[in-house]
């Protein structure tokens, strides 16, 4: 027999079961993504007409390579958290929810690893 009130049992637990941590991480990533997105767009718009070797030499230099790696990690982390929240909000069947959460995590991991590997292969 527990003397906890119903509210005390659920306090701090949303549908994600871990309180505000998810929301806070999403916000920290969002703040970092503001300047990173501006840098990313300002860079790629200059690459539309560039040939292969121009783009390779740009991405081989340290600052663009480092910023690209940071952008990939934070953007995909932010993407994963956002997609996770959408599934928590709109999918109510437990099996479907778990299946989609696995797919989102695996999918985001694969995209991140493939992108990071490619940048390292170009830059190193």
């Amino acid at each position: 027999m527990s003397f906890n009130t119903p509210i005390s049992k659920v306090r701090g637990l949303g549908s994600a079961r871990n309180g505000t941590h998810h929301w806070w991480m999403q916000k920290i990533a969002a703040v970092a993504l503001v300047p990173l997105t501006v840098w990313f767009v300002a860079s790629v718009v200059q690459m539309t007409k560039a040939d292969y070797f121009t783009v390779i030499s740009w991405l081989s230099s340290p600052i663009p390579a480092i910023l690209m790696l940071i952008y990939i990690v934070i953007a995909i982390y932010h993407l994963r958290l956002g997609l996770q929240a959408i599934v928590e909000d709109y999918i109510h069947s437990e099996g479907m929810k778990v299946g989609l959460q696995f797919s989102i995590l695996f999918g985001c991991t694969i995209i991140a690893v493939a992108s990071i590997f490619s940048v390292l292969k170009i830059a190193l």
Partner: protein
Amino acid sequence: MTTIKRPTSPHLQIYKWGAHMALSILHRASGVALGGGTLLLAWWLIALASGPDEYALFQACMRSIVGKIVLMGFTLALMLHLCNGIRHLFWDMGKGLDVETTARTNIMVFLGTALLTAIAWVIGYGLV
């Protein structure tokens, strides 16, 4: 635990549609679309890492009409998510939550999206 039958709050379809509601769902929709944009970014980087032939194929795809439409969608989604995301960060600090400010920032988000997309395309392709 006893459940008390309480009156329920009116749901979405009761309210008149407005820019704030459109932007709310567009923020999520653009976020999902940017997941597709991430695939495009990965393809670009993988093509670059694979060599000139693979990169030529990527460029040919992006220069096609379909490629341009996809890139325009990517740019719009990114700019909308950026502008509305900045507004969300202000909301999280408790700023700009009243109706008048929200109505004003709705317009700022739409104009910012259009302006930033136009700037990116003028620099990138010399056209709007």
